[in-house]
């Protein structure tokens, strides 16, 4: 039995998922919120991107269940000796990937290659020969490389068939559930879905899901024998790195906005409601904070954090914990430096709301300040908070890449899109070029950010139909780094 480890970001991520579920329950019970979210549910691009986003979340959750595997008992140990656990912290995703993807090579190799990218000297029949050596794991099952094309095709077709079967099974399951829900026969439900007349775009969602299944099927089929996206300089599979980067990106995108909410909501509502000197002080605070160049402030905080981690090694026993604390603190730092925009919006809105009749009436009835803020103001600004949270997500994912490139992002031992791009940057100038690292980061990031953007746009349109553009405009120096 392995020992489960709950890292800080794991706990935060699970708490966040629970929070989202609780929110969904609340939405289902409130007719008002249900109508608004209904507009998102009926938006085709948004729901297709939601399917893609869910797939990403699934990978991140798998990657967030960490454990330390039990080591086999030492030879000669007593039978009742306590089980020793490996010092390496693994996640469920690691376990799945080590079972399916070929192990690490020695150096670069191109996607689906059977030979290494760089030449090495080997001894063949006692003679030193300089050649591209065969990979240890990728394509190692091939006795003769002439059968490569046939083997790749066979695996791809098998994977495609598997993906197709999975897509069919999922479609069947979804249609059965929908038929039950609509109290229709299965045939009629399928007809409605296929005709695209359902209000929630089930047909488009099922097509997206099917395509996703097919892609995953082909990749899984190929990676049973090859490195589908090649390997990097130290021989690690690029596909594995990209998959593990997803969790980092999601944690940064979601936890950061959560971290900035307490500051933004607390200060924003207080400034807008109390006005007077409280407003002056809070305005001064956030103007001071925004006037410091964003990247420099973050860099300074991260440098300080690094010094703290370096001088207190006893607090963080394993490397995974150290990397995780750095990620967690990075989210807090980004949240701490980024709350000003939302605070400004909430202040203006609270100022407007506190002049309305119902707030005046509550005040006339002698309701306390705290109660007015909590019961009357907060629920009426939640749509701004929600819009900001979903809009900020994608820009934070992009921002992480910039920060990692600057060396103030996540721990170098932690996989992230930023570190992948950073590594790929120097490899582009080699000849022949090493393009697969960059391509992998590009494709995964584009899929994640594009679907997040499409979903966020739908949420904004639903909650802000007048198009008042509650877009937090971060400092330009920060937003468009190029």
């Amino acid at each position, binding site marked *: 039995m392995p020992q489960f480890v709950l890292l800080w970001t794991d706990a935060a991520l699970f708490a966040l998922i629970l929070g989202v579920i609780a929110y969904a329950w609340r939405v289902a019970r409130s007719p008002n919120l249900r109508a608004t979210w209904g507009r998102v549910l009926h938006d085709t691009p948004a729901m297709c991107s939601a399917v893609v986003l869910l797939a990403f979340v699934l990978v991140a959750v798998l990657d967030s269940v960490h454990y330390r595997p039990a080591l086999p008992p030492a030879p000669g140990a007593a039978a009742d000796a306590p089980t020793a656990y490996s010092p390496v912290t693994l996640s469920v995703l690691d376990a799945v990937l080590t079972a399916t993807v070929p192990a690490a090579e020695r150096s670069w190799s191109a996607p689906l290659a059977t030979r290494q990218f760089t030449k090495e000297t080997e001894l063949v029949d006692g003679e030193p020969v300089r050649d591209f050596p065969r990979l240890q794991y990728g394509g190692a099952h091939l006795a003769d490389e002439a059968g490569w094309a046939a083997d790749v095709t066979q695996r791809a077709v098998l994977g495609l068939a598997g993906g197709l079967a999975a897509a069919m099974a999922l479609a069947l399951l979804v249609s059965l559930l929908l038929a039950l829900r609509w109290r229709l026969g299965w045939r009629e439900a399928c007809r409605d879905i296929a005709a695209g007349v359902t209000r929630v775009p089930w047909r488009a969602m099922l097509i997206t899901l099917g395509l996703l299944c097919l892609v995953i099927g082909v990749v899984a089929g190929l990676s049973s024998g090859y490195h589908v996206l090649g390997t990097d300089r130290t021989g690690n599979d690029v596909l594995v790195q990209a998959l593990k980067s997803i969790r980092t990106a999601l944690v940064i995108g979601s936890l950061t906005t959560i971290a900035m909410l307490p500051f933004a909501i607390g200060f924003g509502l207080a400034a807008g409601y109390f006005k007077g000197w409280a407003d002056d002080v809070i305005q001064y605070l956030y103007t001071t904070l925004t006037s410091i160049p964003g990247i*420099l402030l973050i860099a*300074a905080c991260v440098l300080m954090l690094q*010094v703290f981690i370096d001088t207190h090694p006893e607090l963080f026993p394993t490397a995974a914990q150290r990397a995780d604390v750095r990620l967690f603190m990075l989210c807090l730092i980004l949240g701490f430096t980024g709350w000003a925009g939302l605070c400004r919006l909430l202040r203006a809105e609270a100022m407007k709301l506190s002049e309305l009749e119902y707030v005046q009436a509550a005040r006339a009835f002698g309701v306390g300040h705290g109660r007015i803020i909590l019961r009357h103001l907060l629920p009426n600004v939640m749509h701004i908070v929600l819009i900001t949270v979903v809009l900020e997500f994608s820009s934070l994912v992009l921002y992480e*890449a*910039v920060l990692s490139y600057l060396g103030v992002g996540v721990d170098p031992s932690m996989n992230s899109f930023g570190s992948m*791009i950073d590594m790929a940057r120097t490899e*582009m100038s080699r000849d022949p070029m090493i393009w697969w690292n960059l391509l992998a980061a590009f494709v995964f*990031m584009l899929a994640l950010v594009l679907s997040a953007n499409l979903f966020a746009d739908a949420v904004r349109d639903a909650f802000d139909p007048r198009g008042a553009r509650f877009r937090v405009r971060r400092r330009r120096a920060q937003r468009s*780094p*190029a």
Partner: protein
Amino acid sequence: MTGYIVRRLFYGVLIVLGVNLFTFVLFFAVNTPDDMARLAIGGRHVTTEAIEQWKVQQGYDKPLFVNAEASGTAKLTETIFYERSVPLLRWDFGFSDAGRDITYEISQRAGPSLALAIPTFVLGMFASIAFSLLLVYFRATWLDFWGVVFCVALLSISALFYIISGQYLFAKLLRLTPYSGFAGGWDMLRFLALPVIVALVAKLGPEARFYRALFLEEAGKDYVRTARAKGLTERVVLFRHVLRNAMLPILTSSVAVIPLLFMGSLIAESFFGIPGLGSYTIDAINAQDFSIVRAMVFLGSVLYVIGLLLADISYTIADPRVRME
């Protein structure tokens, strides 16, 4: 008007003081000079004597805020806070940890930074406005739809990809421009062409979409309908009425950004090897040179405050309805 500006100026000074205090707390109180010394010396060479020596060398051997051993005003002036913060207000940035004059470096590097930032800013704004006007002109057609899709796709791509693929395409494949580097005189054009183009493409997505929303909002107003009703062509309506009215908020909000152009752009400068303030900052972050980082934070916040002031003034000039309170 004068009273208003003076009041805003005073507020700006207050903010700069706040930034100064905040960065000082961030840099010195969270980590003591001992920690910084350990970091700077590094590894196995850390001994008590080495730390003391480093602190004396860098001038960090005094108390942080209050010097109990001194008398009179020296109680406050013989401290790290006084020695490190007050010169900043006099534009004296002192020396970097590596022993170079920061003020001189900044004056040397502001030129290349501006040479990249100004064309990027002007051309970027022009390109984004032109593109968004095109979309607004063809609104509710397939061109508008795919234009917006194009914008969303553009803004979903990290700026790093634009730089890397731009370098690959223009410098490696087509051999039109050098990879990176900088030179004075007319050669500058050759070196700056690629960074400017890349920055234009990277900015086009978010900005064109933003401007499109702005123009559409303006185009839905009553006076625009009146203009159309009296028989003006769509072109005249768009350029003479919509553009002119929508440009006002765009221009006044971009006034706030102009002073910040001095700071240069971190990523582009370090990728393209332009010796500006952005790459200076990055080098300082990588070398963990706190003096330079503090100087740049101070410079950035002063420029930001100037930008705020300019924006306030331009609002009142551009729109007489805004009263100065």
